[in-house]
């Protein structure tokens, strides 16, 4: 079998890398996962910087194009392969697309900042033997609660964030939420909210995401 043209650079444990992997798996797009030795600072070396000027993972290649920023990569994959795998990940008409963009932006602007801080403080800092910042944890937990209250309300009248179908807007939440629910004592933030809990249970048990989690645990 020919080597797939799609290459993803970075470790599956990285939230941003896993966001791209789950999108490729949802779309049944074959890819090659290229390891990046972050302990040896490979991501800061000139060859890597050529692909990703900020020296972060993931980087992504498809035919002649090199991309970075996980949410940009996901949009590219969903646009390039609209009928492969899970259809409608990025909408089939402008109104649906607008709703998906709206909730993708909500993820970026409102959900991602506090959930990223909590993921780092509660999961990665201990692994890296760094001291946790209790004040920062408290502050960001409060912010995340407010965001999840909005989601609780939304998901009471809509099966998924942008509407009746699973889209990029939901997918984008998988990486941070997986860590918070499975690897910290903050699972309750999600599971104590009836609609958010229902939504999390549905999106996290999708086969594509389960495969990514397997790759993370390998």
């Amino acid at each position, binding site marked *: 079998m020919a080597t797939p043209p799609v290459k993803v650079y970075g470790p599956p444990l990285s939230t941003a890398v896993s966001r791209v992997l789950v999108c490729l798996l949802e779309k049944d797009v074959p890819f090659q996962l290229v390891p990046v030795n972050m302990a040896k600072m490979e991501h800061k070396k000139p060859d890597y910087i050529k692909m990703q*000027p*900020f020296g972060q993972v993931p980087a992504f290649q498809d035919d*002649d*194009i090199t*991309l*970075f*920023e996980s*949410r*940009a990569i996901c*949009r*590219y994959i969903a*646009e*390039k392969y609209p009928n492969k795998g899970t259809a409608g990940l990025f909408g089939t008409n*402008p*109104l649906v*697309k*607008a*709703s998906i*963009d*709206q909730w*993708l*932006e*909500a993820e*970026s*602007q*409102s959900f991602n*900042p506090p959930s990223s801080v909590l993921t780092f403080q509660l999961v990665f800092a201990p692994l890296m033997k760094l001291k946790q910042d209790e004040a920062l944890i408290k502050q960001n937990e409060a912010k995340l609660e407010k*965001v999840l209250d*909005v989601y609780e*309300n*939304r998901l009471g009248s809509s099966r998924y964030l942008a509407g009746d179908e699973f889209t990029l807007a939901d997918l984008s939440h998988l990486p941070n939420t997986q860590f918070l629910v499975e690897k910290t004592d903050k699972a309750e933030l999600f599971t104590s909210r009836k609609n958010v809990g229902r939504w999390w249970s549905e999106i996290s048990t999708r086969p594509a995401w389960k495969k990514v989690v397997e790759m993370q645990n390998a």
Partner: protein
Amino acid sequence: MAVKVYGFIGSNAVYRVLASLYEKNVDFEFITVNMVSREHKRPPFLTRNPFGQVPAFEDGDLTLFESRAITKYVARKYADQGTELILKDPIQMAIQTVWMEVENQKFDQASWKLMEIAMGRVRGGPELVAEYEKKLSDVLDVYEARLKENKYLAGDGFTLADLHHQPNIYFLMSTRVKRLFESRPHVRAWVADILSRPAWLKLMAFSP
């Protein structure tokens, strides 16, 4: 009027949306939300934006929030008029999307914090300023290299990738932070270009 924008003057996110409407020559009605009385934090505004933020947007039956979702909607719906804000070729669009995400994930966080400090909304001593100026500098170093090869972030033409930067840059150019933009020649030229666009100047003259 079919297109309505709910917000208040002085909000960067509101300006981001209005800039796209001006670039596209789309008429709109501006409905002022009372910031002082925190109208945006209560119903009925919350039905327009459950996060209690401005702007909220209406086009006929469609309501939207999040400025960068609204600008994309405007760019697509009014693709045939005004400035081409989203590139049509799939590869060029993918590259444009990368730089829109860079603005969203990296530029906005660094520049917004510096704005909040300058406005006195966040207590920031010299250490905090230095920290965020370093973050912004790192982003602008990447922009300098990018703009050496391309007139605009997505390529040859002005697109949403540049537009999304206008409000924060406009504000910061009236503060000490402007030296970070001015010390990088290609960034400086790009800033001068995007802030002198007719649509932006029209927006600066807008009064509800």
